[in-house]
């Protein structure tokens, strides 16, 4: 016989009792003792018992989870991650590096939430858990460094972001990057920095900027809308932002882009930096309220998902609870808004094969999958072909691709493989992170397929109309 692994096993072997004894156990008492003493979760933003125990560990989330599908390990599944949260909550275990590693491998894609029959708010649980990890100083060093660098030092500050963007553009377009890459000098960088260089977002040629003037509706007026400019999207995907303004105008909207708006705070919230995330939310609520718009539109699925949750985020804030909830109710993803309007279909033919990649924060967090397809199908000549696993995360997931390189690349390869197999000319998306990730994946695969935002495709079709 093998010796017992744990002295506690010995004592539980002999417990038991008849059916009427009330508390007998099949194999003695299940393991209830502490692994290492933990105080449980603490503070006002701790995951609640009501949310945690809504999970009845049925396992229906497993097959929807990208990290479970890739690893086949329960520790890397939504059900497993919640079980670990419960264990902390119950004081059976403290927040350890091992637990944190399982939580940090989560992409926060929320595919599990969309298929959960019990309605477990997994996204909220994971954000709150990450906040606990952050407050406990238990983040992995990689996430902690990135948090310092981006979440607090850059994202909340429009001018610093712009400056960083310009420097990156200069580095990328001037030939310095090519030169440095060829010289091998980058290899001298510490691994983390080198990896960040390789993953550096590619800046667009022309940035998009919010402006104080209104872009006026063409034709009959239908609505006045505010457009979120955001943080990296106007720098990486300026073309998509300008296309967004044009298609809104084309569909009868006055478009306002308030100049005092900023980043939506989604990345801070996902990383558990609730404090700064809330400040960023308040700034946008103020900016768009002052602009007096009916709807707040975003072309970034990740931003829309967070903005629609501002009400929940600020429900304890006496000054902002009401306006946050109103802001959330009036937020629309641009594909959702156009499909509901409904949009005016383009008149000319746009003869391309397009496959839709469902961004997680559109399909799972906002449950929007039909709207972008409705827009694409409204374009004459466009052939919509579906790829396999179109709603399985592409591995971008905000900072994830910088911190979890291996998993991110596995998912990128899987997604690009599925897209290529669909045999399309263009991958349509609706989120800047996915677009960058897919673009990079396609280039790595040596493919000339392009990645466009749904509104860029719509805009291109409108451009073909005879004047």
């Amino acid at each position: 016989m093998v010796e017992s692994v744990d002295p506690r096993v010995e004592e539980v072997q002999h417990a038991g009792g008849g059916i009427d004894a009330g508390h007998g156990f099949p194999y003695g008492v299940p393991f209830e003792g502490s692994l290492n003493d933990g105080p449980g979760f603490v503070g006002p933003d701790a995951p609640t018992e009501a949310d945690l125990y809504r999970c009845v560990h049925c396992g229906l989330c497993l097959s929807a989870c990208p990290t479970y599908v890739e690893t086949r390990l329960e520790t890397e599944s939504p059900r497993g991650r919640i079980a670990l949260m419960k264990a902390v909550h119950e004081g059976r275990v403290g927040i350890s590096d091992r637990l944190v590693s399982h939580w940090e491998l989560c992409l926060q894609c929320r595919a599990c939430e969309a298929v959960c029959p019990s309605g477990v708010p997994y996204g909220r649980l994971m954000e709150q858990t990450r906040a606990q990890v952050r407050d406990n100083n238990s983040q992995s060093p990689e996430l902690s460094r990135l948090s310092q660098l981006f979440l607090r030092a850059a994202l909340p500050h429009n001018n610093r972001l712009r400056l960083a963007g310009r420097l990156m553009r200069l580095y990328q377009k001037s030939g310095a990057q090519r030169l440095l890459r060829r010289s091998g000098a980058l290899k001298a960088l510490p691994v983390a920095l080198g990896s960040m260089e390789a993953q550096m977002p590619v800046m667009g040629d022309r940035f998009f900027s919010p402006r104080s003037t209104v872009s006026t509706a063409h034709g009959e007026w239908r609505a006045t809308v505010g457009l979120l400019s955001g943080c990296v999207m106007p720098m990486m995907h300026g073309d998509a932002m300008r296309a967004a303004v044009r298609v809104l105008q084309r569909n009868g909207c006055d478009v306002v882009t308030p100049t005092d708006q900023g980043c939506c705070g989604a990345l801070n919230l996902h990383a558990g930096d609730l404090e700064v995330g809330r400040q960023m939310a308040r700034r946008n609520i103020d900016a768009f309220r002052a602009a007096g718009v009916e709807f707040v539109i975003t072309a970034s699925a990740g931003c829309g998902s967070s903005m629609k949750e501002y009400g929940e985020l600020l429900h304890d804030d006496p000054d902002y609870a009401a306006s946050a909830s109103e802001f959330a109710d009036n937020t629309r993803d641009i594909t959702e808004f156009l499909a509901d309007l409904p949009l005016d279909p383009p008149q000319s033919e746009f003869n391309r094969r397009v496959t839709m990649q469902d961004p997680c924060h559109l399909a799972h967090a906002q449950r929007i999958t039909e709207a972008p397809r409705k827009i694409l199908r409204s374009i004459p000549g466009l052939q919509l072909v579906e790829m396999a696993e179109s709603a399985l995360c592409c591995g971008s997931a905000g900072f994830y691709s910088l911190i979890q390189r291996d998993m991110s690349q596995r998912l990128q390869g899987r997604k690009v493989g599925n897209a290529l197999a669909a045999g399309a000319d263009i991958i349509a998306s609706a989120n800047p992170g996915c677009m960058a990730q897919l673009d990079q994946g396609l280039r790595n695969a040596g493919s000339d397929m392009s990645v466009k935002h749904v509104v860029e495709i719509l805009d291109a079709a409108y451009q073909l109309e005879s004047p």
Partner: protein
Amino acid sequence: MANSDFLDQLRAIVGDEYVIDHREDLLVYEYDGSVDRSMPRAVVLPANTDEVSRVMALAYEAGITVVGRGSGTGLSGGAITPPDGLQVAFPRMNQILEVDSVNRTALVEPGVINLDLDNYVRKFGMRYAPDPSSQRACSLGGNIAENAGGPHCLAYGATTNHVIGMEVVLEDGEVVYLGGQAREATGYDLRGAFVGSEGTFGIATSILVRLLPTPESVRTFLGIFPDIDSACTAVSAVIGYGIVPAALEMIDALSIKAVQNVTDAGYPNDAGAVLLIELEGLHEEVEEVTRDVESALWDTGAADVRIAEDDAERERLWVGRKTAFGAFGTIAPNYYLVDGVVPRTQLTQMLRKVSEVSERYGITIANVFHAGDGNLHPCMLFDAREPGVMESAMAAAAELMQECAALGGTLSGEHGIGLEKKEFMPLVYEDEDMAAMQRVREAFAPQNRLNPGKIFPDGSYYRPSPHPASHTAALYA
């Protein structure tokens, strides 16, 4: 053998990554879909039959018990592993090895997900019929262990009717074959004995399943009734017409409310009960039987009869049925599900008993079940934080199981006995019956090293303590 040597040898077989022995990681392998919980000594995830065989031989030599686990969605504690036991989990063995569209069979590994197989073979105009409500997550290996059912088993039979042959690893690591390519085996049907043995006979490592052609025509009815009695009468009337629907499901008022809280499945909020009936077959056949179904429903007092107009509407009706148990979370934080079966003619009688028990114990009970084959799923809804309520729920469950047995039925239609119901076995079997069953088990596993402590009563049944993590109850039926 020291434990560390044992673990080292396991790692040598499957690789470091796939032996899990850290206590913090094992926290996620101590549960399945049921109320029970126990942390194994270690978990191993083999990649092929050879690895399974070597792992089993190693454990056998070391005197360690082994419990198999598919996706951990079971509702009777089948995958719960004792603290000194080794859990062998199959998520990595998830390949569909072969599909034979002429003979209509598929050869699969045990970790293949039920719905994945069905979706895959639909490309070839075939289907895998057993469809447990957890089919999106549950594995075929687990389906075999529990002889899983599902709504469409009314017409097509449970898992055992769809398994032709298996490669099985026995407790000492020996690899044997049960059944074969042919539809009928000569001699004893060992394959039949194996299916539903709840992991106590051996571990299936590859499985040859039967596929059916997809039906030419499918029609789904929603029969809306003012109360559950008239709905029960309708069940008998439908069957009385000589119709064998592909599925015949009952959803009571409380369950309708729960479902409609989460998603609009198209069930009317003011109905006393609805019947979900599906016909399948040749186009003309379905047309003809449709009239009979409609008459049966109208004649027994249906307030309305609707027919799904397209696939989307049919899908919506089924989503409501298949997610009902999850939706109970909107009514109460906890529930406990009984899986009893009664002869169809006793349904009305049994449901009256359910309602009487519910009143007497002061516990809300919802009913969503396979009416066509008399497989009830009375589901007790409660808040386990209230003192004493868990004990009441368990006592109520015991009474319901006793009533099922008294009405000529049995304890479990499709979830298995496992830990959860083992103490109730004497309600339906004499000691001699159970001794005979144990002798069959001895023929497969003489040392009783596979999933011991399940199925047969030994006075150790576990009542979950009022502890938040351990009283969340069964979800799918």
